[in-house]
């Protein structure tokens, strides 16, 4: 079928994960920080699928399935926390979340 080297997919996955880390540190909005976590999870999923194809085993695809399920559960709980935060602080900036700061 396709003759694209698997290492290209892995490098793309590394780039997307790095950009996710940059977004995680760079962004000041709680929701956007959540979205950068989702971006990192997606990058890892791409590496899982690429390795599954490279080693010709299906376990990687099953792991991708579990990662997607956990990400969906995490998004549901996380966004509920974000809604509570917005009600209590009237802001979504992470710098307003400083009750536990020394």
């Amino acid at each position: 079928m396709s003759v694209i080297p698997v290492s290209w997919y892995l490098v793309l996955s590394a780039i997307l994960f790095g950009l996710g880390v940059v977004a995680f540190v760079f962004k000041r909005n709680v929701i956007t920080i959540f979205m950068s976590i989702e971006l990192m999870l997606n990058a890892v999923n791409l590496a899982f699928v690429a390795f599954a194809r490279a080693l010709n085993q299906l376990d990687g695809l099953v792991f991708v399935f579990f990662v997607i399920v956990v990400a969906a559960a995490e998004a549901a709980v996380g966004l509920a926390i974000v809604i509570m935060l917005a009600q209590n602080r009237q802001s979504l900036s992470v710098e307003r979340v400083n009750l536990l700061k020394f």
Partner: protein
Amino acid sequence: MILPFILFALCALLAVGGALALIFAREPIHSALALILVMVSLAVLYLLLGAPFVAAVQIIVYAGAVMVLFVFVIMLLNMGVEEHTNFSKIAKFAAWPLGLVLIVWSGYWLFHSRAASAIGTGAAMVPSSTRDLSKQLFQQYLFPFEATSILILIALLGALVMARKEE
């Protein structure tokens, strides 16, 4: 046989461009739309890798359910553009060197990994059948599969309890 290369290049550019747009967008809703672009182009890459089931789950669960939840919360709260303070300047200068070092380092090791160099001949690139995948999922991974259903139930209850208004 130039078509897969064009498709790969297009989707890779769209994914990286979407990730950059997520970083540089000021409005959260623009970041969400950029992330949807990344997820759809990743689904096309999964099809190109011969994993149609994962591509379908990616579209349905990620681009469908999870991102609709994100967009819904952004629209519901409507907090406008993000604010920048002195601390966010430090974060801005720390983020890029950190990310670049991570990209180069992990990209180098993944590019030279044993699994990546062993193949690429094209012989292994037949599409994986959903039947084999479901056999794997419901036989070898049956217990983790059932555990995820409990996890989803707990997450559902937790989200309900937290989002509820206090009397």
